[in-house]
């Protein structure tokens, strides 16, 4: 059931831009961000999305001091997906 449930959002961290200040980790309400172990080209440990839990609230984006280090995506067509599953219609998009 969990595997089928969609998160409302998704987070992308630009590892080259992130300076590893950790403010997003502190700010994230569902604690979906962690500091990675890997260092980037400039020697900063960067933030990383844990892979699930993002609600697309955007507070991590707002506290982040770098203009483009964080991009927050919001899920759309969740309703469509659920509807299609319920009615047994085949997915129109195949990856």
């Amino acid at each position, binding site marked *: 059931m969990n595997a089928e449930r969609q998160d409302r959002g*998704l987070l992308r961290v630009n590892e080259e831009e992130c300076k590893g200040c950790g403010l997003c980790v*502190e700010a994230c309400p569902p604690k979906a961000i962690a500091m990675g172990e890997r260092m980037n080209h400039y020697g900063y440990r960067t933030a990383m999305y844990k892979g699930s839990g993002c609600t697309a609230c955007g507070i991590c984006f707002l506290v*982040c*001091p770098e203009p*483009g280090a964080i*991009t927050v995506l919001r899920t759309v067509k969740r309703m469509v*997906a659920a509807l299609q599953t319920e009615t047994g219609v085949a997915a129109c998009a195949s990856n």
Partner: protein
Amino acid sequence: MSSESIAEYEVAYAKPKAFYERYERKEELQHATHYCPGCGHGTVHKMLARAIDDLGIKDRTILVGPVGCSVFTYYYFDVGNVQAAHGRASAVATAMKRSHPGSVVVSYQGDGDLSAIGSAEILHAANRGENITVIFVNNAVYSMTGGQAAPTTLIGQKTTTTPDGRNPLNEGYPLRVSELLATLEAPVYIERVGLGDNKQVAHADRAIRRAMENQVRGLGFSLIEVLSPCPTIWKMKPVDAQRWVREEMEKTFPLGVYRDRTKDATPRPMPKTAPALEALPGILGIDGDEDLAEDAVCATDAAIDLRVRVAGFGGQGVLLLGEVLAEAGLDAGLEVSWLPSYGPEMRSGTSNCHVRLAHEPIDSPLVTAPNVLIAMNEPSLRKFDANVQPGGWVIYNGEEFPPDCARQDVHVLARPFTQIADALGDARAANMVMLGALLEMTPGLPQASIDAALRRLVKNPKWVELDECALTRGRELAREVLQEVLQEV
């Protein structure tokens, strides 16, 4: 089949368009700002950029950057950018807004910039109610220069210049800018926000947007003070610095709205637009038939290379004398320069000016070695006499030329010009008697040019008449001396 396979995403929060794609500050690191990890400037930049995006004003925003860590705003914001001298951002923003009334002008300043060296500028910009938005980033220290105490430094806070902590008896109390400006009548919106936690950050974002909206609506002066972390100078981890904003800074600088008259405010009238370039000659009264210098044909063939120093007390007409001479040269189509040099006191101080007239373009308006010195009193003579070129003239206002100033290699015309002018009708015309003497000694300027110059600079017809009389008298006096000189030769 699963719903995952057709999940799609749209961008909810991404780098605002008001930022440049890349920052060309250096060859390298063009993808990131120069700010330290956890710096509040980056966060405030982002809020400002979001507001610019949302209001759709990128193409008419002018951002005035300060001196401090945020000096490089022009590398980041894809808007009109000006970088002001230390503390002057709100004064520069005033000029920007007034000369470009349709633009949205933001003065972005730190606490060292705004509350110390720029305290006068912000006070008066606020008091005039300029229709600008000021973003005031307060981190309680001078960060860029290494952490000296600022007016905003907290009591007890250790900085490089308050190693034992700020002591109010020695360094005064923290300056609360928002409260101070809120005592003024004109500001429309003043709020202090913080970057201390999520709630504060989200609120700061809204406040900055409101401050920008106010300007778009033409309401007047808005200032947002942002309590902002400086992890590097505070020697804290970014998260701890954030907490320090919330737990320490806030005690001294309470968050809140200090002024909000946005509901009652009516849009300020737009300032009058600047006149068109073509209209300027009319406004300055130099239109009509009068030729501009570049069109003038030189009216004299005589070899003229005048380097004149005129000196005297303020009020003796030193500058006017030089001006008439220069204006006459201009009228005659010569190259001229006139450089006044006087102290802050307009009367009773010393005053002098440099005048040059030549056929060739003038390299420097300074006259360090004059070929004519007009000294309207003894101190001026003593000051400049030694520099007169050999073969040059000294025209001195005095009965007797001081013997110790005498030089064998210069000609002298010493007369009590003040008394002579007094006899003509007014002692103040002494300058024109002396000018008349100079014109006689250095022929070449057409009389018509001199008349025209006099009429342009002296408006009162009574004075024009007296001055013409004075010029004639000066010429007579010079002729007498010139004959003596010729006889000697």
